[in-house]
């Protein structure tokens, strides 16, 4: 499905002029290409290269063969970090998706509230992860935070001091920041669904719940994939939030891959093993992106409006 209002007419491109033209525009891509290669692609390959070396971050870089990989792959820390990364990803998806979907459906149908809610909903997205993490660690402080101040026993837990609670808090904070954003994505998707589909369902006598599951959900397939991709790939980048909120703790209960990499590299000065973890992080990211793309299947344009 495309959001574009396509230009009214399109003149078919003449292939004869394209050849000559591409020469005269090709150079314009060079500045972006140069910077992206130097600080995007080269570091990507560099991470792979460094994973076969030994480096403390300051001195000489020495080749070390497979040492880093052996160290990383045999250490239980990696499996644990992978598990926590997966948990954060899965739980934040499971919590955010139904919420965003329902709120999005509501926003799409109510133009009157949409403007107001959209403005306010956007605020969490403007705050830096650092600011959010700092706020929540003060807000959830067991001695002086919200729970203690209000005297509500249920709220007064050592939120960031116990492994499971800390993970839950993390998922909540992520949802706090991103559910509004994903709701806005979903409302955009819902508004693209052709009315004729609902009219047809009406004629066939489908109930509201049936209509939701038979029309709204399938029609939102690509929106769901887009939103899920952003959530899943985005969950790999929660470094700032976790670093400031829990620093991986208590113990290692919120130690995700990116944090494991940072601590190995910049705290323990083991850049080799840290680079090996970085490579794993890249592979996880690329793998997920490809997987989700696959789920999307075929070209977007044809199947979306099938039967309209």
């Amino acid at each position, binding site marked *: 499905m495309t959001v574009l209002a396509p230009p009214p007419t399109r003149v078919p491109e003449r292939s004869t002029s394209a050849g000559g033209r591409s020469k005269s525009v090709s150079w314009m891509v060079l500045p972006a290409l140069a910077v992206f290669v130097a600080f995007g692609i080269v570091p990507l390959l560099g991470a792979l290269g460094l994973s076969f070396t030994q480096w403390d971050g300051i001195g000489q870089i020495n080749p070390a063969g497979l040492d880093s990989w052996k160290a990383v792959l045999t250490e239980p820390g990696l499996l644990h970090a992978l598990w926590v990364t997966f948990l954060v990803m899965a739980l934040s998806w499971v919590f955010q998706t139904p919420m965003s979907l329902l709120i999005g459906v509501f926003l799409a*149908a109510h133009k009157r509230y949409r403007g107001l809610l959209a403005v306010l909903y956007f605020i969490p997205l403007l705050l830096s992860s650092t600011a959010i993490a700092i706020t929540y660690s003060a807000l959830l402080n067991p001695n002086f935070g919200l729970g203690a101040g209000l005297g509500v026993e249920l709220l007064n837990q050592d939120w960031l001091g116990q492994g499971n609670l800390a993970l839950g808090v993390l998922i909540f904070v992520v949802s706090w920041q991103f559910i509004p954003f994903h709701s806005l994505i979903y409302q955009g998707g819902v508004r693209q669904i052709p009315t004729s589909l609902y009219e047809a369902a009406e004629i066939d006598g489908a109930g*509201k719940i049936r209509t939701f599951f038979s029309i709204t959900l399938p029609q939102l397939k690509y929106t769901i994939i887009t939103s899920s991709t952003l959530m899943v790939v985005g969950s790999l980048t929660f470094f700032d939030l976790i670093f400031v909120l829990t620093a991986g703790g208590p113990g290692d209960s919120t130690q995700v891959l990116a944090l494991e990499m940072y601590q190995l590299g910049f705290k323990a000065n083991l850049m080799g093993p840290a680079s090996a973890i970085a490579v794993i992080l890249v592979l996880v990211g690329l793998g997920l992106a490809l997987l989700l793309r696959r789920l999307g299947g075929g070209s977007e344009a044809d199947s979306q409006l099938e039967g309209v």
Partner: protein
Amino acid sequence: MAVSTRPAPPRSGGPALARQSGGRRKWGLRRWNWFGGSLGWLWLVVVMVPIYWIVITSFKTRANYYVQNPLAPPTAPTLENYRQVIEADFTRYFTNSVIVTAGATLPAVLISFMAAYAIVRGSAGSRFLRSVNGLFLMGLAIPLQAVVIPIYLIIIRLQMYDTLMAIILPSIAFAIPLSVLVLANFIRDVPKELFESMRLDGATEWGTLWRLAFPLTRPALVTVTIYQGLGVWNGFILPLILTQSPDQRTLPLGLWSFQGQYGVNVPAVLASVVLTTLPILICYAIGRRQLLSGLTAGFGR
């Protein structure tokens, strides 16, 4: 191309559509949305309570903070916290953040715009441009954190460690893929006849870029600039690993070290949160419409 720029579709949309007559339809709407609606408003409360708490607490005195109901407005509002934050060198961090954000975002959007133009105009006849486009698309999936170690190495070798330039260069690189993608989509919407008539008028591609594509894609340029600017302004990991002296700190890093230093003084810490967020809120108030429609459109396809 933004959702909001389309003519409003003549439908109320959503599963809220009722079955039969207009009367039942209205009733049906209300009944369905009782659930989605209460969720929407409930979540608004969840979103707003912490924000409200940040703001009121930042005006409380320390003594007041410990004894007062946390959700009650301050009995004796004070600006003392803000004074303390500003004295803790936040003006310095603020200047650094402005330099880094402007220095990374403007060049990034500019060169991305040129690249997007080249990709749209030349891809049909150029394998090179198609593969560059593919490279940028792949770049969307590279998490920045995964490459910070090599970036750190490169920056050291370039003798740029602990400078603002060290933050700016990688920030530009990582803003490019998404900017090119979004801008290319917008440039594709410019009717081909306009390009053709520019060509017949004897305009060069460079001239067409500035006199035709630039004004027509201005909304997209603003959206992309705000979006990338927000990312750089709030960026944490690059300043964390590429700088070390307090002189070179950007706001998020300054915020973090301020918390480390004055963590027990919660109202002052929250005042620092307010101060670092204020500039973004002001920008948001100005560019809100474009940001919202641009973002939801860009991701909604």
